[in-house]
């Protein structure tokens, strides 16, 4: 190896290392929003496999799968103009909320390059809109939230599965969690958008944080204040089933920003 080629190699290494050290800062005209998504149950952090008292017949629930598709997240400025932050992400608490520390931390989505400004409202979608719901998993590369491997498509209904809420129920307070329950939602007409009047200020080169909490207990509360009878209908995965409509409508008030 000649001295000349060694010199060139060193120069290349320095340039490469320099490039890797370069931080992708937002410029003075843009900033970053970190959206921290959490799951709770009646105010307590939701921990996978932990028993939570369910306000019906002295029963209790353990959750093993709680997730939802979060799509079309956007900030809306004072003139009503949208700044779109994402297409779709899976917020899956079953892999993260396995201990109290992780449950408290939640799942953070990071959106960079947002124009500086004050945005009076934030909009989030649960599920996917009808345009995206016309696509199929095979249209997406591996690793995409809608790809085949994500395992969230119903061939029978030609729809992505918007949310999954699964676990075991102790239906009469005996301490035995023997009733599996599973509520999957999806289908055209069940996509929901929720608008929060939450002022988000994006500053140049800075990170702004916001929190989005999902109270899973509130997903199961009916309009009359009573809670869904899990023993009577422990499963739902056919579009149009009452439990499906209940859950999707309830995202409106099960979500809160912090």
């Amino acid at each position, binding site marked *: 190896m000649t001295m000349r080629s*060694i010199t060139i*190699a060193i120069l290349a*290494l320095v340039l490469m290392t320099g490039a890797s050290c370069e931080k992708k800062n937002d410029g003075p005209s843009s900033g970053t929003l970190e959206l921290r998504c959490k799951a709770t149950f009646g105010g307590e952090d939701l921990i996978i496999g932990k028993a939570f008292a369910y306000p019906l017949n002295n029963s209790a629930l353990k959750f093993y799968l709680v997730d939802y598709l979060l799509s079309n997240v956007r900030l809306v400025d004072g003139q009503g103009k949208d700044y779109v932050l994402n297409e779709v992400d899976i917020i899956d608490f079953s892999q993260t909320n396995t201990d109290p520390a992780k449950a408290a931390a939640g799942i953070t989505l990071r959106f960079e390059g947002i124009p500086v400004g004050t945005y009076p409202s934030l909009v989030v979608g649960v599920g996917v809109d009808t345009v995206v719901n016309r696509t199929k998993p*095979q249209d997406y590369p591996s690793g995409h939230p809608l790809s085949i491997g994500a395992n969230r498509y119903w061939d*029978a209904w030609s729809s992505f599965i918007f949310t999954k809420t699964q676990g075991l129920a102790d239906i009469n307070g005996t301490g035995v969690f023997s009733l599996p329950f599973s509520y999957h939602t999806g289908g055209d007409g069940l996509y929901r958008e929720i608008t929060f009047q939450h002022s988000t200020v994006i500053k140049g080169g800075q990170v702004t944080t916001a929190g989005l909490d999902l109270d899973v207990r509130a997903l199961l509360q009916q309009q009359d204040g009573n809670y869904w009878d899990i023993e009577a209908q422990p499963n739902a995965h056919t579009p149009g089933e009452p439990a499906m409509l209940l859950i999707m409508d309830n995202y409106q008030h099960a979500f809160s920003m912090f």
Partner: protein
Amino acid sequence: MHFLCSRAIALSVSVGLAVLLLGSCERDDPKPDCMDCDLTGIPYSPTPHSVLIPADFPQLEIPADNPLTVEGIALGRRLFYDPRLSADSTMSCASCHLPEFGFTDGKAFSLGVDGLLGKRSSMSLANIGFAYHGLFWDGRAATLEDQALMPVEDPLELHEDWANVVDKLIRSAEYPTWFRQAFGIKDKRDITKELAVKAIAQFERTLISANSRYDALFIRFEDFPTEEEQLGYDLFFDFEPSVPDAECGHCHGSVLLTTNNYFNNAIDSVGNLNEFADPGRGKVTGNYLDNGRFRAPTFAQRGADSSVYA
């Protein structure tokens, strides 16, 4: 930050120099004399190969460092069927992955070269190129290339040493030429296990199954199903509300008849998640919630009338 960056640059330069110099030493270190090891007289002009993918299938994602070539696939096919990959040269990959059984062997537990039963059955390789979430039943291999390394040295499978396999390949009359044509090696002693598994993975990516009666009926709509076939389809996927849902489609959905995801099929009766004799996926991820979960196999190409094409 600037201080850290300067230190990082200095460290990188030092390490880089060392690597470069070592690399140059290796390159300059001549191999021992070998009269017939030079392969440079054999032409190396690999032919790119495009796999024929049905329109409804997902994209076949191919690693950038292992593009499909006619020569690479041919080499992989030869290795796949070659018993020299086993300790006593009696078993090949194809001994447990038979084309007539959808590239499995139809047995609950596969028999290894020493006559010992394996812990699990051999998985189908039909459409295996689309398995992007791990290989084997528990997903412990990330890629087809990683996967192909393991059965050779598994005591319950081929129970051979890769060094021995490579030695056999180097000493063979044909393999050095085939490796040269596939990968451009200049010396027969450049054959490595890494190149061997690259070739096997190339071959496996061509195992596309889309020509079964199921595909003709329910994917391409070329014929009318019988009453029983339609009933089975409705049961499987819950298409018809008046027919009970057999719940099969949850794990065996999509055009591939699997999502290649991990599930528990409730066959094992356990008191809690830590009681599974075979923890499956949980042993790989370390998450007890994954205990008892295994990759859902595809049902593609299970019929005797199926064929594989690429």
